[in-house]
């Protein structure tokens, strides 16, 4: 089974590697780029912990092979905040509203909420709930997450 060269831009930096085609984008980010903020829960598209931005669109990185992302721009949780290492508005809102407990699902939620609010800056609570539905929190801390999304929307979050 032939390996394939892939190149992509991850959080603004060029990355390239020779990979097995079956390597997922999530494993590429974690194992090849050492960006372990992208978490893997179910690894088959149910939990949303591995959500990243692929050319700006929120996707499950476990349901994309790295070879499919060849040439793409990827933004992970590590790339959402400002360059000085501070927090993005969505990240701040999660902290302020206790939108996390164990924190495992948090990167996926933050990336999903970031994309959701970019496309839908003034959502109703019902719309936020639908926007959050693709991510699972096994601590079931959903009320804090909902409050965080609401606060980030109110702050005109990026």
């Amino acid at each position, binding site marked *: *089974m*032939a390996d*394939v060269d892939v190149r992509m831009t991850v959080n603004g930096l060029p990355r390239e590697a020779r990979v*097995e*085609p*079956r*390597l*997922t984008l999530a*494993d590429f980010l974690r194992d090849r780029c050492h960006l372990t903020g992208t978490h893997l829960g179910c*690894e*088959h*598209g149910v939990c*949303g912990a591995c*959500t990243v931005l*692929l050319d700006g*669109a*929120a*996707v*499950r990185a*476990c*349901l*994309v*092979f790295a*070879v*499919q992302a060849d040439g793409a721009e990827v933004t992970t949780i590590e790339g959402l905040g400002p360059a000085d290492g501070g927090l993005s508005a969505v990240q701040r809102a999660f902290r302020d509203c206790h939108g996390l407990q164990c924190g495992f699902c948090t990167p996926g939620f933050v990336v*999903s909420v970031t*994309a*959701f609010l970019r496309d839908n800056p003034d959502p109703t609570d019902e719309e936020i*709930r*639908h*926007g959050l*539905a*693709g991510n699972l929190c096994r601590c079931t801390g959903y009320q804090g997450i909902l409050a965080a999304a609401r606060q980030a929307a109110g702050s005109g979050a990026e």
Partner: protein
Amino acid sequence: MKPAPFDYHRPETATEAVGLLAELGDEAKVLAGGQSLIPMLALRLTAFGHLVDVGRVDGLRGIERRNGGLWIGAGTTAATVERSADVAAALPLLARATPFVGHFQIRNRGTVGGSLAHADPAAEYPAVALALDADLEALSPRGTRCIPAGAFFTGLWGTALEPDELLTGVTFPAWSGRCGFAVEEVARRHGDFAIAGAAVAVELGGDDAVRRCGIGLIGLGSTPVRAGRAEAAATGATVGDVDADEVGRLAVADLDAVPSDLHGSAAYRTRVGAVTVARAWSAAVEEARGG
């Protein structure tokens, strides 16, 4: 890495893609958005020696007005369909079904053609294709052929596509006149596969008679199914005389392969299915009468 190893091919044209499919035979599988295929590979429910990634094939994406309907390229994502003003105007049933397709992260990758070719009985697009009598267009080294939706779905995850055929597009007829459309689903969580659901299209004549109707069932068989008996009973009748609950009852009366799993027994799904058909029927009729 969870999937079994495979060789990866990324053709740039549809002709090149079907050439690869013909050459590689049963060992090859088309990879589009991957939102159904990759989970199946990850769970090792299936394995292929070769994946042919059509994600960058020219001409497989887009939405165009054709022959009184809309042609949608097989590689068009559900997210694109969701944002399309043309789909909202010409194909309300497709537009209303789309928010039920997975979660928005899935819709960003998953494609119309991928959903149809995967032919999951619980998916929305096959039900819409059946209800509207869509035409599916398949390319092979022998040329292009058109497959009516009614002849496309042949069994669990099975379609009329030959191993060397690529689904390139689908044309959904736009229904005009006094029409109404509705999709109803019951799922444990928004975006999950439906326990049961229905997509209903209705057209009324000036005399309030049902001129035509299409009822696609979601999650109620081993293959996407159409409620032919309920459609036949309603067609031609004065719409005020058609009892929505009876339409629902007839729609599920002949089902013989309703799935049963931890989310619901076959009996439960059948009852929920009848209710969703009745609700969708009522909503579609209300819209048609108002229009």
